[in-house]
C-alpha cells in the first residue's frame, strides 16, 4: 500500500479523504495548504502520490505544483487534483506541472480509489523501469 499526501485547507474534507484512503489500506499524510505541503514533503519525501485542492490560502494548489516541479521534477510525485475548480485552463496548467488526474468535488470514494490505484500502478511501473 502507498503513502499518500492529502492537501486541503478544509479539515473536514481532509478527514473524509483520509478515512477513505485508510480504509483501502493506504497511509496518509496531511497538509493544510501548499506552503505547508512543501514542508511536509521535505520532512517525508517517501510519498507515492499527492491529492491536492486548488483554492487554498497562502499557497494554492497549482502554485504548489509549480514549486514542487522546480525542486523535484515533474514526474517524481504524481499529483491528483481534487477540487471544485473545473476550468480547462487550470487543467492544462496542472498537466504542465505534474498533475496526472483531476476529479471535481464532490467525489465518489469508490471512483477516487480506483483512480488512485491506476495512478499508483502506472507510476510504480514507471519507477521500476527507470
Amino acid at each position, binding site marked *: 500500500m502507498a503513502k499518500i499526501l492529502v492537501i486541503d485547507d478544509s479539515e473536514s474534507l481532509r478527514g*473524509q479523504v483520509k478515512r477513505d484512503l485508510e480504509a483501502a489500506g493506504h497511509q496518509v499524510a496531511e497538509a493544510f495548504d501548499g506552503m505547508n505541503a512543501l514542508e511536509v514533503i521535505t520532512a517525508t519525501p517517501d510519498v507515492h502520490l499527492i491529492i491536492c485542492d486548488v*483554492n487554498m*490560502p497562502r499557497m494554492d494548489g497549482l502554485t504548489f505544483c509549480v514549486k514542487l516541479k522546480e525542486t523535484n521534477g515533474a514526474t517524481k510525485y504524481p499529483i491528483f487534483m481534487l477540487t*471544485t*475548480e473545473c476550468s480547462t485552463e487550470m487543467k492544462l496548467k496542472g498537466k504542465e506541472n505534474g498533475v496526472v488526474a483531476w476529479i471535481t468535488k*464532490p467525489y*465518489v470514494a469508490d471512483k477516487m480509489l480506483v483512480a488512485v490505484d491506476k495512478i499508483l500502478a502506472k507510476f510504480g511501473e514507471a519507477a521500476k523501469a527507470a
Partner: protein
Amino acid sequence: MKDTTLIDNVAGASEIFKEEVRRQASTLLQGFASVDRTEVISATGNPALHGRWMSIIILAGKALKMNFRVHFNEEVAKQLALKVYAKKPEEISTAQAVDFVKEFCNLVAGGVKRTMQDHQMQSLISMPLITRGTDEVFFDIGQPEVAGELPLPKKADHEAGQQDRWTIQTERGDILCSVTFDILEPDAVQTLKDKKTDDAAEEEVEFL
C-alpha cells in the same frame, strides 16, 4: 415601456436557477453529512432568527452572479459533521463544525459552477467565509424598504436581484439555506433546463 419578453425570460431563468441550487444543496448535504434523508422546505419568516452562524460563498460569471449562504447553529453543525470526523458530537470542536459547513458551501458553489460550465457558462467562485452574530446584514437587494431608511434606488423588476430561502431537514437537524442572485444573461441560464447534467455526485475522474 416595459420589455415583457425580458422580464419573462428573467423570471423563467430565475425559477430554473432556484431549482438547480436547491437540488445541489440537498444532494450534496446528503452525501457529505451521510444522512439518510433530506427534505427541502421553502422557508418563510426572518432569517436572522435562524442560528448564530452563517457561511457564505460567492459565484460570479457573465451569465449570473450569486451568493449562497447557510445559516446554522453549532449544535446542528456538529450533528451533521459527526460522520466526516468519525467522532461523537461532543468531541467535535467549534472550528471543526464550522469547517464542515464552509466545505458544504464550497461544494454547493462548485456544483453550481460545474453545471453552468456544462452549459457553456463560465464562472469563478470565492473561498467560503464564515461569520456569526444575531444581525442579518444581508438585506433583500432590490427591495430598499427592507433596509429601513437607506436611500437605495428602486430597480426595475427585471433588474432586481432574485432570492430564495429554504430549509433542508435531516434526521440529524436542519439548516437554512439562502441564495441571492442576479441573472445577467437569462437566455443562457434558461438552458439549464434543457439538459440536466448527471447527478453531481457522479463526476468521473479525468486523466490528463
